[in-house]
């Protein structure tokens, strides 16, 4: 079978409003985002023969959405268990399904009320159903900010990464969000504002942590060939990869300052036929500021331990050499669990990103949670169709 490289494309993206309280069900959110994405693509419901999502017990079954939409004969579905680490894997899976001829048009979506109903940080959520939870929760260690803070502290101790360098990530993303009318956090923020924010889990301040958001995002995938007959400039899926991650069980990966993305990145870039210097922008999973720093290292954009100083140079700004999280990311746009990174990359590559457009963007990397905690990671390389 020919390569997956450039054989499929993202042809439509859709959003609901982002808020702290949607006032509606995850079913309603998912339906709204899917219809918006189809409208953006210029496609009809009758064109859809696949649906894919991921959940952690916090959202409605995809088959219920299918039935609500009157889709009577799905050719492909995916209901992946998992959090942000699988956010890009579902798009890769959908691309595989289209590439293999199982489905013609697959809509990937994520719908969540992550502030008003099911907070990842604990409130309203039972203990995570993971086999390692029993070895952590009795010590009061059971939330993502704690898990990431542990790795960040190790990085700071070993490499001298500073609070101000974490803050540089947060400040940069806020500046991008100011230019994004979807973003929830649009009040400009200085480094002093960041430093003045309260501790959540040392070494994380409030503004090191992502938002908790109600909302949904959807995107439409079809073959590259078909994409060229549709309304929007196709954004080709140039590469897709799946990778491992760290857990208590992974004593093959005992260094908390290095993620499984470091193992995965070379094969992703090989599949895509690209190198670090080819990218016009990066949308890096930013559940916390530190995850941006560690991914800059592990995907090879700077050396191990040097991401903090790199962030302080201003390179990550829209006007910098390597714009990162052009929408503001989870830290300032909203937390839609990774899919809003993909849709932002699509907007940038279509040259539809308005005031925050990276001029002439052709190639983007967009990543899932890099593998701390979950035992898995995933990522995509996206390219504007020539």
């Amino acid at each position, binding site marked *: 079978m020919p390569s997956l490289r450039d054989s499929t494309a993202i042809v439509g993206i859709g959003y609901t409003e982002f808020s702290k309280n949607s006032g509606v069900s995850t079913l309603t959110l998912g339906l709204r985002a899917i219809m918006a994405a189809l409208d953006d693509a210029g496609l009809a419901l009758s064109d859809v023969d696949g649906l894919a999502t991921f959940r952690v017990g916090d959202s409605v079954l995809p088959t219920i959405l299918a039935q609500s939409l009157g889709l009577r004969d799905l050719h492909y579905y995916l209901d992946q268990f998992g959090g942000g680490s699988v956010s890009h894997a579902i798009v890769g899976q959908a691309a595989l399904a289209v590439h293999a001829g199982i489905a013609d048009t697959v809509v990937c979506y994520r719908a969540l009320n992550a502030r008003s*109903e*099911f907070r990842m*940080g*604990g*409130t*309203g*959520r*039972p*203990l995570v159903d993971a*086999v*390692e939870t*029993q*070895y*952590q*929760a*009795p*010590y*009061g*260690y*059971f*939330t993502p*900010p*704690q898990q990431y*803070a*542990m*790795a960040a*502290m*190790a990085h700071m*101790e*070993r490499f001298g990464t500073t609070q101000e360098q974490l803050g540089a990530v947060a400040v940069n993303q806020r500046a991008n969000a100011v230019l994004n009318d979807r973003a929830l956090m649009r009040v400009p923020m200085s480094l002093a504002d960041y430093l003045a924010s*309260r*501790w*959540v*889990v*040392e*070494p994380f301040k409030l503004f090191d942590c992502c938002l908790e958001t109600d909302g949904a995002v959807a995107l439409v995938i079809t073959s590259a060939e078909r994409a060229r007959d549709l309304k929007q400039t196709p954004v080709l899926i140039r590469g897709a990869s799946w990778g491992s991650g760290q857990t*208590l*069980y992974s*004593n*093959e990966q*005992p260094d*908390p300052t290095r993620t499984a993305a470091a193992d995965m990145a070379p094969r992703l870039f090989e599949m895509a036929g690209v190198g670090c210097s080819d990218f016009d922008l990066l949308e890096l999973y930013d559940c916390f500021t530190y995850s941006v720093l560690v991914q800059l290292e592990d995907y090879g954009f700077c050396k191990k331990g040097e991401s903090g100083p790199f962030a302080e140079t201003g390179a990550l700004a829209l006007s910098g050499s390597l714009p990162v999280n052009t929408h503001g990311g989870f830290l300032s746009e909203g937390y839609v669990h990774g899919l809003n990174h993909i849709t932002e990359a699509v907007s940038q590559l279509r040259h539809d990103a308005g005031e925050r457009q990276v001029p002439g963007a052709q190639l983007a990397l967009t990543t899932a949670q890099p593998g701390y905690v979950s035992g898995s990671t995933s990522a995509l390389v996206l390219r504007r169709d020539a």
Partner: protein
Amino acid sequence: MTEIDATPLPQPDRDSEPFWRALQAGNLRLQKCTACDTLRWPPRAICNRCADFDARWEQLSGRGVLVSWIRTHQVFAPAYRDKVPYVVVQVALAEQRDILMIGGWQSHRDPAPGEPVEARFVAATGEVGLLDWAPSE
């Protein structure tokens, strides 16, 4: 939806029950592969180095090296309202440095990455114990 309204206790399963019982008795025990001597953490039926199923439970020194630590200020669940701020540490075991454990911290001073630490056993119930860490004496 269920909230965490009490400090979670260990919930032993069919793999981990001997580990938690040993802690209750004041011992740190892990499985050691009978084929290649690799320690297993967390407890499980197979060696992740040599894929051998056989193992014996072995008592460890209770010594380790502090890898990282955090201090939680946010009340993530009602059970912790009176406990914040509290420190949690990550420790590499002396016998096998690639085994990282999460535990409580028993000292009035902050942990220092790289410092030697030793186990402190806390009997949580009559059946299970917890493993905290303290600076080596």
